[in-house]
């Protein structure tokens, strides 16, 4: 969960940025947006923050609430603010539930649960005026009219036998305070702990009941706020990582090698559960060099193969990605971006690997870079990435970011009817029998050579990262070199019709454009809604293919607007740099944030307003 530190302090530092368009991210007035709304008895958009120390189980409370509201038909978005340590240190989680679609954090919290005083103090800064603070007795020192202190951990310790159950006690108390339906709230616990075995379920239900009783005894039976039910009843609550793992399975992915790294590990862990059921193999490699090279080996042998990592691992995979490019091996590399450079901030959000994934590795080779915007898009584009890699025989990089990877969001169940498997020019023994000659790297008009994998009689040949002739033998012949470069690089042009098109949102006639990729999808769409309420029409170009740069659609978009804000999470304005290399339009402006938090819709609104958004 992100924190706003009073007035936005970016200003001074942004002014030092290398690109001239540095902007502040200050919404006209934060308070206006949130605090003007007193705690209403019935909310249609609520946010609850749960704070404490690492290990206090704050994520569990957020998750239970999220599932409760999902079952009530609301749109849900959760976020987290955790340190890269296992216990201790401030950590918090935030759960937003809204009747209107949401994929981003709410500007202010309506309710804060604090397991210690630090969390209470931090929480108070983010509470809407009139918001409620629920604290653990003995820990929380802050006081105030709307501060309620209950003996959460003491009750857990004395009555459930372990202070750690304080989180479920808190959930129980919340269920009363927020007017949740007790049976539904308990059902969420059953769904989560039912399969655990042992007495986990029983003890959690007990903790819930105790918490509810605590609230009843000390606060009274009337909820302090209630939340409207929503209409999105059939939605699932999922993350980009989960969507990616499922998309991989459904897209025919059968081999995955990875190395643990935040925030990419959940993809590997999900696949460890899924893949064995489908004759697939998941290996935790000894490092990322091994991971990408195992992936390449499996892809070469004919399996659909993928690896997933984050910044540091990605840097180590640089040489391998180039090898896949030269040797024409179809692999998918998922980059779950986090704060860089180097070890950076492992648990925090950023989108600063863009230019790296587009330009890294020595020499030149074709690659595609795709970026989905939400979980459903991630599911779809993972399937697409697998198809593109095999069809065009090259590495495809799927760019996620921490917020998309880890923050749970509701959305429609993944749609299997859109899934297609296209293995491209993959040869069977019979295909080869009918051919006069089989050359692994044959020159063809579309730059794609038919490919046979080991085990296929007649398909024997050489695969190599050296420059090679059509047979795959080492060659330094100049004419061959020019042709091979053109064969490989030409695909960047030829593949354009196959590449995921942008999605457009908002008013087709709007003169204000917004461009973004990845998880900014959420805050941008919500900023559009807020702006629309103020009468400002906008159109959003959600870039899903980042390389090769989709010049045509971008050009048309830029022609259609008077100003286009490129919204992204990095210092340099990397997407803007990439675009202006091809389309040096003065209409391009930059909205950037690089402090580890994801955008609030209000920040984007504020910026558009501040810079005189209306044309």
């Amino acid at each position, binding site marked *: 969960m992100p924190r706003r530190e009073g007035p936005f302090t970016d200003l001074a530092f942004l002014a030092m940025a290398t690109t001239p368009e540095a902007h502040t991210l200050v919404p006209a007035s934060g308070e206006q947006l949130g605090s003007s709304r007193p705690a209403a008895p019935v909310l249609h958009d609520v946010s609850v923050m749960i704070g404490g120390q690492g290990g206090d189980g704050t994520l569990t409370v957020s998750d239970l609430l999220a*599932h409760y509201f999902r079952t009530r038909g609301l749109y849900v978005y959760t976020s987290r603010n955790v340190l890269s340590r296992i216990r201790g240190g401030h950590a918090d989680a935030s759960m937003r539930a809204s009747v209107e679609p949401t994929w981003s954090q709410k500007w202010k919290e309506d309710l804060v649960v604090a397991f210690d005083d630090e969390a209470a103090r931090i929480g108070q800064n983010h509470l809407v005026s009139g918001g409620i603070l629920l604290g653990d007795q003995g820990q929380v020192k802050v006081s105030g009219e709307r501060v309620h202190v209950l003996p959460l951990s003491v009750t857990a310790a004395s009555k459930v036998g372990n202070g750690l159950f304080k989180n479920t006690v808190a959930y129980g108390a919340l269920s009363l305070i927020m007017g949740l339906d007790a049976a539904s709230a308990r059902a969420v616990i059953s769904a989560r702990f039912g399969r655990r075995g042992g007495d986990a379920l029983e003890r959690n239900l007990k903790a819930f009941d105790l918490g509810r009783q605590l609230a009843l005894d000390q606060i009274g039976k009337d909820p302090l706020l209630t939340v409207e039910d929503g209409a999105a009843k059939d939605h699932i609550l999922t993350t980009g990582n989960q969507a990616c793992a499922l998309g991989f399975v*459904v897209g025919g992915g059968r081999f995955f090698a990875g190395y643990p790294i935040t925030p990419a590990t959940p993809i590997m862990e999900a696949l460890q559960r899924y893949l064995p059921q489908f*004759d697939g193999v998941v290996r935790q490699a000894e490092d990322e*060099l091994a991971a990408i090279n195992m992936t390449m080996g499996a892809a070469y*042998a004919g399996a659909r193969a993928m690896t997933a990592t984050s910044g540091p691992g990605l840097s180590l995979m640089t040489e391998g990605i180039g090898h896949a490019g030269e040797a024409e091996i179809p692999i998918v590399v998922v980059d779950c971006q986090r704060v860089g450079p180097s070890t950076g901030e492992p648990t925090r959000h950023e989108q600063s690997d863009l230019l790296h994934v587009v330009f890294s590795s020595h020499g030149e080779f074709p690659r595609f870079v795709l970026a989905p915007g939400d979980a459903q898009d991630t599911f779809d584009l993972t399937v697409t990435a697998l198809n593109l890699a095999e069809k065009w025989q090259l590495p495809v990089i799927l760019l996620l970011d921490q917020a998309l990877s880890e923050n749970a969001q509701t959305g429609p169940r993944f749609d299997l009817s859109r*899934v297609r498997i296209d293995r491209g020019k993959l040869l069977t023994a019979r295909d080869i029998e009918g051919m006069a000659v089989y050359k692994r790297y044959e020159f063809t008009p579309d730059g794609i050579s038919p490919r046979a994998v080991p085990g296929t009689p007649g398909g024997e040949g*050489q695969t190599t990262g050296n420059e090679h002739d059509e*047979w795959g033998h080492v060659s330094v012949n100049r004419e061959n070199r020019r042709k091979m470069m053109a064969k490989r690089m030409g695909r960047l042009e030829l593949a354009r019709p196959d590449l995921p098109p942008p999605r457009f949102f908002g008013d087709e006639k709007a003169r204000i454009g917004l461009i973004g990729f990845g998880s900014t999808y959420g805050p941008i769409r919500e900023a559009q809604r807020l702006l629309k309420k103020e009468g400002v029409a906008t159109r959003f170009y959600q870039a899903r293919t980042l390389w090769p740069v989709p010049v045509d659609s971008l050009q048309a978009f830029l022609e259609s607007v008077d100003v286009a804000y490129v919204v992204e999470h990095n210092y340099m304005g990397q997407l803007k740099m990439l675009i202006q290399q091809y389309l040096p339009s003065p209409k391009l402006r930059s909205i950037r944030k690089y402090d580890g938090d994801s955008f609030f819709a209000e920040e984007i609104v504020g910026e558009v307003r501040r810079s005189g958004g209306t044309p």
Partner: protein
Amino acid sequence: MTEHVKPVPPTWCPGCGDFGVLASIKKSLSDLKVPLEETVLIGGIGCSGGIHNFMDGYGFHSLHGRLLANAVGVKLANPKLTVIAAGGDGDGYAIGMGHFIHALKKNVSLVYVVMMNETYGLTKGQASPTAPVGYRGNVESPFDAVLTALSIPSASFIARGFSGDPKGAAQLLTEALKFNRERKGFAFVEMLSPCVTYNDTYKLWREKVQNVTSVAGYDAADRSRAFSTCLEIMEAGRIPIGMIYRAPEDRRLPSLDQTVLPTLEKAPATTDISLATNLPRYQKLVDALT
């Protein structure tokens, strides 16, 4: 008949030890009648690493030091394949050291042949990790891959041949290939393969090699014994060769490919990934989401 890629003539210097290794690999593959389409030879980067270009079958040219990671991927994608990784000592013991140890640990059924010449041939003769003290100013004591392989609990096939003794070398390779085709695990064969251009050790090594079987009562099934015998031979200024260690069946750990892919038929590269076949099971997964 479809026209196919033909092996190119070796690019090695005349007399290079690698010729002997190539001949041994070819011989053992043909002795065991390994089908051409099931043979995958993965070369490292170095003079030695070009070996796949000089053979029939499927060839894969890896990055410097990464051949074992590629090989693990290939084998776990399709365990029917006979996968041989072959590279230099620089490739395997310098930049590739981590993967070497982990390949021994993982115990995937591969054959790994290291053409050991104490030097980086292709980059013109710098000291490799096995170079003796004094070679081109080297001051680090040489790495001994056989000793280290013995230290990895799952290592169950450790041999060293000499390309100056092609018959012995081919025998070891044939054993390794058999081991491999029975999916028994990782077979490591270091081949002493002199670099006649930068470090011509033919004569020296011919004098120094000593087959472990020459040691009275040597038992290739006894790991401790193998370790101490090799140390003794080395301390006497000689080089232990032969079948150094082969785990007895009752102590052999199962290979990783056997563990994760119990049947040969169902594997990542060969399983049916069509939507038609899988849709009901996919739908179940999706339906299970909440």
